[in-house]
């Protein structure tokens, strides 16, 4: 293992220190428990958007803290869910009276820890909502698994809902928008190499020179299938079709109800993509793949979208939700209506994503 790190147990802390030193205009970093807040938090009267998860996916989530996006991010150890005290302290720090919305990627650990945090925050009189991101089309069913994982749509949801909160949406409206974004977004990922978790010191899996993993998550876990290495066009096409040809997806999610002070279950069904849709297309590097290669994938993706009658209205291309230094990429398509596009275009000023200001 070769990385620019000091002791493996200090990796997360020192990266946070680096961020704090680099971006005092945008964010503040808090330690024990670890969380990152907007420099100007709490913003009175604004819904506060909080996300978090294991580290190793940088710039997500800490790099998305700032005006127009997240109010707080809670980083766990590398690939390990954060603990509820982090989200709880973050919620107290950023709540501006309008409540906090948790954006939670669907991994059992993240879900359970965020749920505990929601209960703690509610107990303190903070209005809470919690929306699950579960967009990974590589996971087929929800009945026999923990459901689709939360991947690329998370980045888009953080941007879009962050802008809505900035624009004055209330907690209910932010939650509805987040749910809508999640239900309209789907992703698929591939890996050309494994990544190495610093504490583990060796690659998570072995992958031959002539094969790649299709349908990976974002924790260096193996994917849906291992395939012979192929060209950018073949890989791009297989990825695009895994999203565009994916059928409806139904599952039950648990959301917090501020009235009853308890969790309620909702059955949600995501519609498949169809001709005539307009989308935000997000081609993401897993960390070790340079942006030049992403353009080769984007080229094919755009061609296939056009053939399917799907219009790419906006795009995002680069490393935004990564798996350490893994080589590979993911594609996310988000069906976008005017509301979504308006908030996508709105200004954002974070270390990881910035435009309009």
């Amino acid at each position, binding site marked *: 293992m070769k990385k620019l790190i000091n002791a493996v147990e200090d990796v997360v802390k020192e990266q946070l220190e680096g961020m704090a030193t680099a971006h005092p205009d945008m964010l503040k970093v808090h330690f024990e428990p670890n969380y990152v807040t907007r420099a100007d938090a709490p913003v009175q009267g604004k819904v506060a958007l909080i996300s978090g998860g294991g580290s190793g996916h940088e710039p997500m989530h800490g790099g998305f803290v700032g005006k127009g996006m997240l109010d707080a991010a809670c980083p766990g150890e590398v690939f*390990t*869910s954060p603990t509820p005290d982090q989200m709880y302290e973050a919620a107290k720090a950023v709540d501006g009276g309008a409540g906090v919305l948790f954006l939670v990627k669907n991994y059992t650990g993240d879900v359970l820890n965020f749920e505990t945090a929601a209960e703690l925050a509610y107990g303190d009189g903070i209005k809470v909502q919690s929306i699950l991101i579960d967009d990974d089309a590589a996971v087929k069913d929800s009945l026999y*698994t923990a459901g689709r994982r939360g991947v690329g749509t998370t980045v888009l949801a953080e941007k879009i809902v962050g802008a809505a909160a900035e624009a004055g949406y209330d907690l209910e409206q932010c939650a509805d928008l987040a749910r809508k974004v999640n239900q309209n977004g789907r992703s698929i990922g591939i890996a050309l190499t494994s990544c190495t978790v610093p504490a583990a010191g060796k690659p998570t899996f072995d992958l031959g020179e002539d094969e790649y993993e299709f349908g990976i998550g974002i924790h260096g876990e193996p994917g849906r299938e291992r395939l012979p290495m192929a060209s950018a066009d073949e890989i791009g096409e297989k990825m695009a079709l895994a999203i565009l040809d994916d059928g409806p997806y139904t599952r039950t999610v648990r959301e917090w109800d501020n009235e009853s002070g308890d969790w309620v279950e909702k059955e949600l069904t995501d519609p498949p993509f169809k001709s005539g849709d307009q989308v935000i297309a997000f081609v993401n590097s897993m960390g070790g793949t340079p942006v030049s290669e992403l353009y080769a994938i984007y080229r094919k993706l755009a061609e296939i979208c056009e053939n399917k009658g799907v219009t790419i209205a906006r795009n995002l291309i680069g490393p935004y939700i990564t798996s350490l230094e893994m080589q590979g990429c993911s594609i996310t398509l988000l069906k976008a209506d005017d509301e979504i596009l308006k908030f996508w275009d709105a200004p954002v000023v974070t270390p990881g994503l910035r435009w309009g200001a």
Partner: protein
Amino acid sequence: MVTRDQIVHWLEATAVVMKENKEYLTQLDAAIGDADHGINMDRGFKKVMEKLPSVADKDIGNILKTTGMTLISSVGGASGPLYGTFFMRSGMALASKEELNDEDLFKMLKTGVEGIVQRGRAQLEDKTMFDAWSPALDAMQAALDNGQNTHDALKAAVDAAEQGMKNTIPLIARKGRASYLGERSRGHQDPGATSSYLMLNALLDTLENE
């Protein structure tokens, strides 16, 4: 009667057991998860050991709740909130108790496991820690109904938990990280069921030795 000291000793014994089985649990997790369960449990119970002295003279409910809070804020992952909830709930059920009778002991375990289920929504044969706890509670209930004493009822529970743990081997996981492996999760023993068995066994050991 189970004393406050015995509860403290159980937690200490659990910490020792998690340390001893750190590698083993992590290996089990490597096969169908992300190779951290032993590390998580060891980290959590180390923290519990740091916290324990400050509450060791409080009532049992308090001790258990502190254990729960500590696990919640130090373990992370799926098992952190689950074991954390276990101790939080059992602590709440035994608020201000200075010692536990047979019924209390059963209540402690039962309310704890109810917490796990409420949080994790696991069902039998989902290949989770619940597959150890569920038969354990059934066996303990039956033994108590049969008029057996604490020790024997607990012994029955530990045996059932061990069997439940082993029964996870052929199962396909339907909850947690292992569920993404589908068929490939078959043939491996669930790490959480294993740590649950170890925890319950540590309780039996503690009570036997005192």
